[in-house]
């Protein structure tokens, strides 16, 4: 394989762009396929699309013999807006699950290294930080401050950038108000429906009488 192809693949990966490397096991020249490039007429179009979708690398059989498809999807990331107590648990859980976690919270009383040792922590407003983090479809965002001044921009930005998961905490009432604010700010209804409200799982809460749940 030409080292220029390795360099080109590494450049796509470093830029968090999906790519597939097609390596014929006959020794014929390999090909680099970048996300979004047209695949019409490609004898392996279906297999390549599947590699982009699943991120699974595998050997496939084409007309000219076997080809190995190396699927390179950007590694998943989680941006947590809010350096609150649940973030102290969520950040290590995310790391174990293979997510690179970043916490953003402008409140310096919350965003302290002592509370979040070993976690990437940025004590700035989401407006100032998130555009530079390059949120993308392989990024999840969880807004957990319950404070519209901090959460709202982050939610709008995550929806605009196509994050695969956009979650927010708060009661139904809190979320209802959130929807009203974001809707008034021009966020399309389809986008608002993508917000996973009450993103905390019931099982993550202490047990309490069923009649009081909901």
């Amino acid at each position: 394989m030409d080292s220029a192809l390795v360099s080109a693949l590494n450049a796509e990966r470093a830029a968090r762009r999906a790519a597939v490397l097609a390596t014929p096991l006959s020794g014929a020249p390999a090909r680099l396929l970048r996300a979004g490039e047209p695949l019409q007429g490609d004898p392996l179009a279906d297999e390549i699309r599947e590699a982009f979708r699943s991120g699974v690398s595998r050997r496939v059989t084409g007309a000219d013999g076997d080809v190995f498809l190396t699927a390179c999807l950007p590694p998943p990331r989680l941006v947590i807006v809010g350096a609150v107590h649940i973030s102290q648990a969520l950040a290590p859980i995310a790391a174990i699950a293979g997510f690179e976690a970043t916490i953003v919270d402008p409140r310096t009383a919350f965003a302290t290294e002592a509370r979040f040792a070993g976690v990437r922590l940025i004590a700035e407003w989401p407006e100032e930080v998130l555009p530079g983090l390059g949120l993308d479809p392989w990024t999840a965002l969880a807004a957990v401050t319950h404070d519209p001044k901090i959460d709202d921009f982050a939610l709008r930005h995550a929806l605009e950038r196509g994050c695969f998961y956009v979650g927010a905490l708060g009661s139904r009432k809190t979320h209802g108000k959130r929807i009203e604010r974001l809707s008034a700010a021009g966020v399309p209804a389809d986008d608002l429906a993508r917000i996973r409200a009450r993103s905390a799982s019931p099982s993550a809460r202490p047990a309490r009488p069923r009649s009081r749940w909901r």
Partner: protein
Amino acid sequence: MTGPTNADVPDVADPLSADPLVVAEAWRREGRRVALATVVETWGSAPRPAGSHLVIDADGDFRGSVSGGCVEGAVVAEAAEVIDSGVGRLIEFGVADETAWRVGLSCGGRIAVWVERID
């Protein structure tokens, strides 16, 4: 940037720095002769999934893993020949293989590894 920021935390935004493909690129840039081994198929229990890489140079230095250590030695030996000849080859390892006692996979699976030179 103002406010407390954990500057000492390793840059998790750059998990690629120890990645075999990044190592391969860097080694080539240094003028080293390099081969890349890739797990292209696994059967049964195998320690590393398809797509796992091992990068090897002409001196036998290597990074990455194709089997968690079971057959790396054999792959490195094959890579030396591939670096000389420039001809890629497909190698299978497994308990059914006659080399099992030497370089078999103790987990009982089989793997196919494609070894090619990076030019």
